């Protein structure tokens, strides 16, 4: 990010062209004073109280007339007697970062969608199995009642009552079964689709999805896909979702670190010793270097 040294004191200002702005106040070169009165009045109050400020963002106009966003931070400077001399600070052009925000929003939406797919898929599977389990006893109830109806002779009124009761048992059990079938067919639409998947593709897609986020957080993502990783059977969307969650968790965990050395490694390899398919996360610390690494272990076929 191109950090421009602050030009001068209170009367000085900064922007995409600091030299040309000497003698101009921030609010003179800003173009959003009218639209964001609250922000500006708070900022003016801070300045008049000679308080420090940090990361104040305003919109200005670049040399080519396009909108430019400036983030500025300043500390008040006092002389030996404690008299206020002005502000000293830095400003930077954060236009590129802000422009990236809609992309970040899209990323978050994609993440939310993936999470939803997982929940719905699980729900669909649970429903299908639940429907099957419940339909079995209902079918047995219908069969048994029908068997009774089949052997019960027509006779006195009491027996006709038994017949009616049995017929009601049949129709009620059929009704219950029909409800289950309806719920099941609704859930079935969202069942997962297993297909042959290349883990390298999944990792590539996740890294692409996380790119904006990782860049904004200063995290370097390194991937390593062994050549002998086989094609596995799975739901690519669900696999993406799992890996993306791990990546986001890893980046969250590295948030407390200094900007330097944020490294996230994703490795896919064939582990012939471990027959369990597993995704494991590991955090390794080496002095100033801390990294989150994922090992995507795939069982030998």
């Amino acid at each position, binding site marked *: 990010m191109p950090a421009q040294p602050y030009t001068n004191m209170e009367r000085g200002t900064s922007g995409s062209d600091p030299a040309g702005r000497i003698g101009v106040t921030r609010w003179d070169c800003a173009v959003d004073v009218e639209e964001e009165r609250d922000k500006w009045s708070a900022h003016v109050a801070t300045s008049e109280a000679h308080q420090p400020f940090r990361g104040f963002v305003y919109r200005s106009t670049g040399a080519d007339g396009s909108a430019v966003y400036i983030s500025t931070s300043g500390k008040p400077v006092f002389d030996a007697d404690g008299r206020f001399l002005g502000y000293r600070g830095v400003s930077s052009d954060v236009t590129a970062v802000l422009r990236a925000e809609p992309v970040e929003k899209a990323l978050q939406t994609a993440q939310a969608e993936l999470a939803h797919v997982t929940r719905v898929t699980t729900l669909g599977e649970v429903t299908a199995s639940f429907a*099957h389990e419940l339909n079995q006893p209902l079918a047995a109830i*219908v069969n048994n009642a*029908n*068997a009774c*109806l089949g052997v019960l002779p027509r006779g006195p009124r009491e027996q006709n009552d038994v017949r009616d009761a049995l017929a009601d048992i049949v129709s009620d059990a059929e009704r219950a*079964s029909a409800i289950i079938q309806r719920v099941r067919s609704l859930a079935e639409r969202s069942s997962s689709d297993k297909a042959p998947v290349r883990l390298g593709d999944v990792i590539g897609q996740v890294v692409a999805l996380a790119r904006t986020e990782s860049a904004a957080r200063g995290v370097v993502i390194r991937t390593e896909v062994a050549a002998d990783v086989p094609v596995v059977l799975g739901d690519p969307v669900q696999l993406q979702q799992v890996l993306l969650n791990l990546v986001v968790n890893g980046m969250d965990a590295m948030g407390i670190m200094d900007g330097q050395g944020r490294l996230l490694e994703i490795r896919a390899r064939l582990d012939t010793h471990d027959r369990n398919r597993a995704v494991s996360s590991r955090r390794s610390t080496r002095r100033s270097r801390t990294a989150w690494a994922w090992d995507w272990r795939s069982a030998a076929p």
Partner: protein
Amino acid sequence: MVTDAAPIVFVVDDDPSVRSSTERLVRSAGFEVKTFGSAAEFLETPRPEAPACLVLVIRMPGRSGLDLQHELAGSGIQIPIIFVTGHANIPMTVRAMKAGAVEFLTKPYRRNDLLQAIRTAIDRDRDARQERREALELRQRYERLTPRERDVMALVITGMLNKQIAGELATAERTVKFHRAHIMQKMKAESVAELVRMAGQLGLTTA
């Protein structure tokens, strides 16, 4: 004509309560029923000689109903199948029906739907058994013919006259006449037309 033994309905279902309730339901309609908890159990048990059908559930642990259908067909066991499932989908239904299933019912089914399917299946099996018996009987009759009689029969069914046959086989017309009488008697054929039909059933060419 040989009369068949009493028909029998085989039920294969892994769910014990569905199995026993199906047994009661089928028995309530007057059929003899035998139940099995798995496809393997059904295959291992010897079946009596009687018109029969199989009420088979699709989803089972181990061999599925469709697998069993495939296996029975592969080993030449002909038994009409009524499929029963909790949840049918189109590919499953198509596969079952293409492989010759009599009916495909979704649980819980109506009493009459199952019983009607069972009656259809048993009728079909009875007819098939009758056909198989007749084919066997016909084969046995044909095998009682002498080689010479078979030669004559091959020509008789082409519509040749005795004289023509005699010329073809370089023998006397009287001898052919004699053979022909024997063939008609041994094959229990009333007419040449019937003999031609029998030859068709035996797979003999009339060329």
